[in-house]
């Protein structure tokens, strides 16, 4: 089943799921956090109704019909630009307004309306989904004899429901019984965590008999359990049934939105309904992230605001001075009747008039603030995301997964990434484990080479340790001879073991034990293919699947699991043929990230009690019996060798139990399991600890996690692009270093700096007092960092690259406040940093430190639940939607199927999006400044009286009609170089890191360009068409004609300016740019044909006055060319004499075309 996703609980990695629990709350049941009481099968009883738990209807909408208008309006007016326009709109109803109120409000209404419609549409889709879900049908027990159908929303806590095969569970249920006699069922939790493998659920034994409608008649039980929470993988509670207390575990809980599979039907009691269910409790908005550019854009908007206030107050001061002058004899402008002036122009109350004028000016120059900027950017980003989602180059065929931009507001940030923090397992590697080597009874088996080994062998002068002398003696095998079909998860070649040759080995009994443990000590489920009889396995982690598969291949075929037994087809060396053996399964002590081991206790057919245990080497070695250490030294050697070769290792051990000991322990264990309080898990762990001791070591396994396709090449490209790469992994130091070699993060020419606390002298230190140890360790790390630092600063620049390798323990100290900065300085100087043995929390901490201290954009990439913190902390989180569950993807901003797509995501899409957004914003400010300053120049020649140069409607249509679409085309389609070139010249990425397209000089340059254009347009147009007769009939040009002509020049100039700075033309660009200009003429004709009372100065101005006049057309041509000249000159000059990277690359491309 290639491409099938599975979840992995890494045996070697640290805490996948939150283990922290609230402090214990009192005794057994109840208390804060554990107060829920469910009256099974009696939801209508007075006690139950008193509890008043919410119904099962859910609502995921953000708005309701009633609050949509106020709430969405409130959201809209949290943007400062919108508030400004609202105030302007309100004030424009007063006589202060330079133009009609409706023309001010219209653009605001369009912009706010468009955004609100978008919101409403999205919410409506959610609503539709809710309605569909709430009205799904489910069968509920009516309390007497029968089940009847009802809608999901009508379910109550305590109802008994029947769920059929392939149906979704309507609420969180307690599993009572299933169509299977042994009370198991299989569920698929795709909607919860994206895992498609089937999970086995197991009901309590006491309830398995509740099989038919009648049996529920008398069923009454009381469940006490935890309050609603978001932890999908934990549940604590008890059920009081027939006078006895039964503990409840996650095994008995069926979560809403998961699906019943491979089971005819199940019965269950509703415990959590509606928004109390775990899946709903999990639905939380991810922390919202904003891109650098957007933050800077806000600043620019403030700059523009201050610019606006500045020119408005300048105007007001001049207006005040001029108006004051009116009263004097020499300047008495009788034609505006200063003697009968209104308050707004009163020369005797100049200060007040100037103040009112200031308000007028704010309205007049309101077009400096680009009202449509935000919505344009939103539209552009959504479209950009579509491109990312639909990029075929980022589509993974094997898993049928395209890239997915889950948030659209970080697109441009991709082009500015400076540091990548990467998880290892599942991100750089496939996380499909292959069993390659093992050490049994102190003898190493398995001849294949791991990728890391090959990489090391290939070209490095990496010091080979003595251990590297092959522990495998070469005479024992010849692997080339055997050709067999490849088995997924199995890459083991050793003829000493295969094809039943193991029985000839000296320690065949140990080997038998070893593979038996592998075949029994797990939680996998066998899936028997009915037609071929083949058995495949569904396991919680790929490691386990690899073990079971390996056992199968070597003759220990696990074929059946019931609740109480595990059955194998075993090769019995004594009889010489296969026999079926069934082991009675007594207990499973499950794996958890704190325990780092799992055990099973079984009873063999010979009534022997055995505990099989597999786990991390450190954990197992601690727990060995005196007589179990026979192979310890050699196994340790092998384990070290394996992990150096980049393999994941587990130690395998067993223990014989006496009946008395087991009985005593079992009682204790049951008691621990049935306690209901916060630290139950801790108590259970503690109890388990008591039996998992005095183990006898058998051997160790090594599985390889192969590198994903294209990882070394991708990392190489990213390094060429100047991106720093940090690998944060839970692996051992040696494994991490080897993976570093395998993916070419580390190269032989690099100087490695290793900071670790895993040295003998440190070990010696550990025997002292706690505080003293802390201090000593801290000192040690500090010293190592300081040494490294001085080493780096001495050699910096001369011999190039350093790589820093630090382990988790040291990292904890290095991240402490006093060493933080020193550590970071060191890390920044190194080209690569590998942090090994890190916990999820440390990953997030490192990410935060890097982000905060370098002030550069960080990108975190990971695939597992343990990367969630890191993904959320980084500026950009990229989830791998690969083998592990969906948790990483759910909390990421972008999801890609494989690591190698990161190259394209950053270097191509990132580069383009960054360039586009930056160019778009700069251009936006340019066009509004051009427009706004022309108004100012005109006002300066109109007595600073606040008279606009244009007709009202020209002004309001500027942003929404004549200049909106081309700039969107720029933001969506523009590219400086095609993707091929982006990938060929990765250094282009540095443009984004140094932010050269959105640096303050560039922004101010564009603004200056805007001012220049406005000056040119204003003075050239007025000089060209005023004074002289405008046409052959001798008519002169008034404000109306000047306004139309000047506006024509503005529309042409800003659109041609856009065409000039575009790097890439499609027909869409042509349609939008030339269409916008053409639309201006159309608009002028249509608007001009309205009656003069509506169109006022625009009445027939185009058809009658402008169009027939050659002067109009000639001056348009001339003004547009001159207005574009400064930019054209500058860009040609810069491109020719001071080219930027992309200019050079553009010409490289031209030359080599």
């Amino acid at each position, binding site marked *: 089943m290639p491409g099938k996703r599975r979840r992995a609980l890494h045996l070697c990695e640290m805490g996948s799921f939150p283990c922290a629990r609230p402090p214990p709350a009192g005794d057994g049941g109840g208390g804060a956090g554990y107060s829920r009481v469910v009256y099974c099968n009696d939801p209508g009883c007075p006690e139950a109704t008193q509890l008043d738990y919410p119904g099962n209807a859910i609502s995921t909408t953000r708005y309701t019909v009633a609050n949509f208008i106020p709430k969405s309006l409130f959201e809209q007016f949290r943007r400062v630009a919108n508030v400004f326009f609202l105030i302007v709109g309100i004030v424009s109803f007063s006589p202060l307004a330079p133009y009609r109120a409706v023309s001010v409000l219209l653009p605001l209404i369009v912009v706010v309306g468009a955004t609100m419609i978008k919101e409403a549409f999205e919410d409506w889709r959610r609503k539709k989904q809710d309605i569909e879900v709430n009205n799904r049908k489910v069968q509920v027990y009516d309390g007497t004899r029968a089940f009847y159908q009802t809608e999901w929303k009508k379910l109550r806590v305590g109802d008994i429901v029947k769920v059929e095969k392939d149906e979704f569970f309507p609420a969180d249920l307690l599993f009572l019984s299933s169509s299977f006699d042994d009370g198991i069922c299989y569920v698929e939790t795709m909607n919860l965590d994206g895992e498609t493998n089937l999970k086995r659920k197991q009901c309590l034994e006491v309830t398995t008999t509740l099989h038919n409608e009648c049996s529920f008649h008398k069923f009454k039980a009381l469940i006490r359990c935890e309050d609603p929470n978001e932890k999908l993988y934990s549940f604590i509670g008890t059920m009081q049934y027939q006078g006895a207390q039964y503990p409840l575990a996650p095994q008995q809980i069926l979560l809403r939105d998961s699906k019943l599979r491979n089971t005819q039907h199940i019965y269950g009691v509703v415990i959590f309904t509606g928004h109390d269910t775990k899946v709903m409790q999990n639905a939380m908005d991810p922390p919202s992230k904003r891109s650098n550019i957007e933050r800077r854009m806000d600043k620019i908007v403030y700059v523009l605001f201050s610019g606006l206030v500045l020119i408005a107050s300048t105007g007001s001061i001049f207006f005040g001075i001029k108006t004051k002058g009116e009263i004097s004899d020499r300047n008495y*402008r*009788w034609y505006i009747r200063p003697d009968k002036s209104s308050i707004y122009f009163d020369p005797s109350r100049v200060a007040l008039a100037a103040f009112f004028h200031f308000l007028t000016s704010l309205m007049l120059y309101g077009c400096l603030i680009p009202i449509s900027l935000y919505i344009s950017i939103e539209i552009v980003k959504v479209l950009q995301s579509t491109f990312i989602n639909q990029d075929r180059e980022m589509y993974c065929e094997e898993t049928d997964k395209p890239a997915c931009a889950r948030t659209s507001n970080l697109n441009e940030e991709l082009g500015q990434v400076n540091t990548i923090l990467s998880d290892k397992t599942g991100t750089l590697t496939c996380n499909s484990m292959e069993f390659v080597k093992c050490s049994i009874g102190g003898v190493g088996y398995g001849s294949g080479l791991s990728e890391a080994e090959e990489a090391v062998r290939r070209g490095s002068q990496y010091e080979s340790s003595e251990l590297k002398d092959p522990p495998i003696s070469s005479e024992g095998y010849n692997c080339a001879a055997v050709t067999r079909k490849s088995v997924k998860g199995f890459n083991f070649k050793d003829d000493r073991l295969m094809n039943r040759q193991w029985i000839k080995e000296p320690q065949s009994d140990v080997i038998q034990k070893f593979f038996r443990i592998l075949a029994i000590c797990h939680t996998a489920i066998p899936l028997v293919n009915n037609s071929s009889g083949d058995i495949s396995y569904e396991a919680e982690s790929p490691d386990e699947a690899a073990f079971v598969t390996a056992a199968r291949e070597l003759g220990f075929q696990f074929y059946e699991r019931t609740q109480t037994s595990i059955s194998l087809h075993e090769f019995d060396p004594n009889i010489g043929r296969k026999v079926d053996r069934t082991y009675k399964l007594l207990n499973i002590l499950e794996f958890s990230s704190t325990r780092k081991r799992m055990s099973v206790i079984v009873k063999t057919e010979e009534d022997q009690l055995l505990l099989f245990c597999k786990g991390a080497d450190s954990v197992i070695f601690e727990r060995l019996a005196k007589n179990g250490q026979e192979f310890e030294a050699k196994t340790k050697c092998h384990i070290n060798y394996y992990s150096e070769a980049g393999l994941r290792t587990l130690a395998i051990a067993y223990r014989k139990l006496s009946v008395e000991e087991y009985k005593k322990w079992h009682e204790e264990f049951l008691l621990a399991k049935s306690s209901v309080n916060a630290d139950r898990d801790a108590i259970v762990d503690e109890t388990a600890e008591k039996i998992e001791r005095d183990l006898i070591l058998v051997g160790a396994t090594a599985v390889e996690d192969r590198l994903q396709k294209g990882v070394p090449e991708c990392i190489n490209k990213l390094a060429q692009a100047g991106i720093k790469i940090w690998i944060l992994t839970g692996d051992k130091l040696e494994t991490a270093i080897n993976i570093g070699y395998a993916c070419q993060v580390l190269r032989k020419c690099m100087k490695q700096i290793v900071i670790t606390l895993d040295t003998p002298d440190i070990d010696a230190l550990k025997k002292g007092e706690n505080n003293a140890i802390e201090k000593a360790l801290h000192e040690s790390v500090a010293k190592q960092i300081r040494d490294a630092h001085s080493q780096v600063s001495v050699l910096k620049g001369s011999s190039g690259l350093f790589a820093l390798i630090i382990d988790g323990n040291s990292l904890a100290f290095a991240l402490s406040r006093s060493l933080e900065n020193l550590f970071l300085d060191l890390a920044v100087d190194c080209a690569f940093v590998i942090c090994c043995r890190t916990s999820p929390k440390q990953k997030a901490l490192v990410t935060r430190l890097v982000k905060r201290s370098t002030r550069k954009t960080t990108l975190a990439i990971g695939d597992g639940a343990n990367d969630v913190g890191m993904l959320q902390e980084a500026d950009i989180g990229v989830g791998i939607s690969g083998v592990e569950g969906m948790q990483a993807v759910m909390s990421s901003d972008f999801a890609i199927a494989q690591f190698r797509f990161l190259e394209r995501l950053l270097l191509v899409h990132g580069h383009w999006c960054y360039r586009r957004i930056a160019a778009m914003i700069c251009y936006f400010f340019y066009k509004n400044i051009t427009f706004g300053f022309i108004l100012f120049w005109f006002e300066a020649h109109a*007595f600073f009286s606040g008279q606009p140069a244009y007709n009202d409607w020209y002004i309001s249509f500027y942003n929404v009609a004549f200049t909106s679409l081309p700039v969107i085309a720029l933001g969506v389609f523009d590219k400086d170089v095609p993707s091929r070139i982006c990938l060929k010249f990765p250094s282009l990425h540095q443009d984004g890191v140094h932010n050269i397209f959105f640096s303050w000089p560039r922004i101010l340059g564009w603004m200056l360009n805007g001012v220049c254009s406005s000056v040119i347009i204003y003075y050239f147009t007025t000089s060209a068409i005023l004074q*002289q007769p405008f046409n052959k009939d001798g008519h002169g040009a008034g*404000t109306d004609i000047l306004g139309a002509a000047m506006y024509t020049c503005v529309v042409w100039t800003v659109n041609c300016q856009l065409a000039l700075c575009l790097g890439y033309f499609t027909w869409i660009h042509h349609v939008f740019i030339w269409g916008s200009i053409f639309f201006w003429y159309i608009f002028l004709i249509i608007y001009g044909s309205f009656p003069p009372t509506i169109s006022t100065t625009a009445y027939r101005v185009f058809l009658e006055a402008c169009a027939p006049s050659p002067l109009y057309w000639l001056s348009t041509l*001339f003004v547009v060319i001159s207005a574009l000249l400064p930019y054209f000159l500058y860009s040609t000059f810069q491109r020719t004499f001071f080219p930027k990277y992309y200019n050079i690359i553009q010409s490289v491309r031209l030359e080599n075309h």
Partner: protein
Amino acid sequence: MKAPIYIYYELDNYYQNHRRFVKSRNDKQLLYGLKYKDTSSCKPEESSNGLPIVPCGLIAWSLFNDSYAFVRDRGEMNVNRKNIAWKSDREHKFGKHVYPFNFQNGTLIGGGKLDPSIPLSDQEDLIVWMRTAALPTFRKLYGIIEEDIDADEIITVHLVNNYNTYSFGGKKKIVLTTSNWLGGKNGFLGMAYIAIGTSFVLISVLFALIHVKYPRPRGDPTYLSWNRKSNAS
């Protein structure tokens, strides 16, 4: 000069584009006359003696009222004062049945008076005046002389200086000009075209010179920064 010869009056330092001035008119009243009552936008010239003014507003009130007579040896020249306004203004903005009413009857007389027996659509000097100028120095068409004027011919202009520009220090000028397909004589546009064209030539020469002196092959990858860096190290 060949007919038609256009006569313009030019005012300077006269802010016809002052907001108070521009707004002080009522388009609906101009079209519908007394039938349209809401003339608040015309303040402070919306009514006098309790009666509404047609046409109301400061623009109309300040109508330019100097008059010119052009006399040559053969006698006074015929100045045509028809067709001096835009056709659309005459036909669609000023009512054919709207007659001046209560105009210039206030205590303070602004500019020219209007003949109450002629409808507004025929009062072309008013129409021209009410199409406000864009800048404080402006010319407006006064009339058209429809006979040729010979070179060196002396023409005497009799002008009646009614209009007060002294109070704000403005100047008045009379301009006579002919027109061609491009409108009037337009020195600026010609000069500007030549200037921009010349500057293009100069800049291209300059670029060429720089390029000859410091040649740099286009698209040379050795100029790329990472190559530079690796050369250095």
